[in-house]
């Protein structure tokens, strides 16, 4: 077997992939927290990465993660806006209510689809469902602080909100998540403590 010298410099795509590769798990979780289903999250991740690649020259001097999360969030909001235009207001209200009430009173979480059951641990699925029951402004802060271990300054940069807002959302989001998760994990104890039948 013989070897020859270098062939070519890495292409723009190879450089982009190399920079993004270590961030994929975090971005994937970020999309999972934004979206209601795995399929939707995977589509969002793909669309966001393609958009980031096509606009790679517009990236400033900030962190890659912050830039990519910003693109994913904007892409998500755009999709939601276009969906909302197509859907009636009543549908949106019913969907939101059933999600939150389902989390609180019906054993805590939505029934995961078969793929989700295969892919994720039960605990992770449960906490993800509880995160989904939080309003988005709390959900993303809790995810970035408590799952991704980002500090408040970095979270403020990623979400484009003031530091004080991040701290306050983290406190309130954490408190709500704790209540939701315990209710989902121990539905009987919750019913008893609220005066319901044990």
């Amino acid at each position, binding site marked *: *077997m*013989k*070897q*020859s*010298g*270098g*062939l*070519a*410099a*890495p*292409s*723009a*795509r*190879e*450089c*982009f*992939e*190399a*920079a993004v*590769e*270590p961030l*994929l*798990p975090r971005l*994937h*979780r970020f999309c*999972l927290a934004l979206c209601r289903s795995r399929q939707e999250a*995977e589509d969002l*991740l*793909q669309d966001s*990465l*393609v958009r980031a*690649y*096509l606009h790679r020259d517009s990236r400033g001097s900030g962190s890659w993660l912050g830039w990519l999360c910003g693109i994913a969030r904007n892409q998500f909001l755009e999709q939601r806006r276009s969906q909302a235009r197509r859907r009636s207001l009543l549908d949106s209200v019913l969907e939101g209510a059933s999600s939150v009430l389902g989390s609180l009173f019906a054993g805590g979480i939505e029934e995961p689809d078969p793929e989700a059951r295969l*892919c*994720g*641990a039960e*605990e*992770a699925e*449960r*906490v*993800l469902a509880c995160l989904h029951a939080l309003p988005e402004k709390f959900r993303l802060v809790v995810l970035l*602080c*408590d*799952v*991704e271990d980002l500090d408040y300054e970095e979270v403020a940069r990623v979400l484009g909100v003031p530091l004080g807002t991040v*701290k306050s959302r*983290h*406190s309130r989001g*954490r*408190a709500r*998540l*704790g209540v939701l*998760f*315990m209710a989902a*994990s121990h539905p009987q104890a919750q019913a008893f403590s609220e005066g319901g039948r044990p």
Partner: protein
Amino acid sequence: MSAEDEDRPPPLPEEVHAALRALRAEKPSAHLRARLQAALARAEQADAPPVTKPPPRLRLAHHPATRVLVGAVLTGALVLLLFPRPPAGPELLPAREVAFQLPGDGAGWLELPWTHRVHAGEPATVRLETSPPLTVHPHPLDVLSRGLVDCDEDRCVHAFTVRTGDAATLLRVRIDKPGRYEFRVSHASDVRHVQEHFVVVADP
């Protein structure tokens, strides 16, 4: 209660902490990674500038000020080359060409000369993409753990954790016909993260 305490978020029950840790283990599947790579490859093709005739030469190109500017840019590039910054992400090694002579019976195992020594003997996670799809055979006793394998029409993605250093795992790929093959190997340990690109030309 101090102001610092007020700043601190409320503690979470240990059960919730454990669940959040479990969520941290959530990673994109090999199938999703392959799908993302394919999408980026399509975007790269769509992004490539169309081939056009070269524009006529401008007088500006011959202006002395333009030459000074070009000189300054080239000097800057040279300075950057001489004083490189430490890499922010994985290190990209230049592509290497490997010539492979197929044995008489028409099929053989090619040993990829991956640079395992950069990991100083630490275990490394290897992600090997073969294009077109091929069988990869690290020795079973050498593989510490095997991850997901995903294939489509154009490529196969193999993932496993291997030994490095003197007892490094051999990465062997089965080639059974002449042709041009491409292998992208990403290997990461606590020490380094390196990406390599091999172009193998197999001759009969």
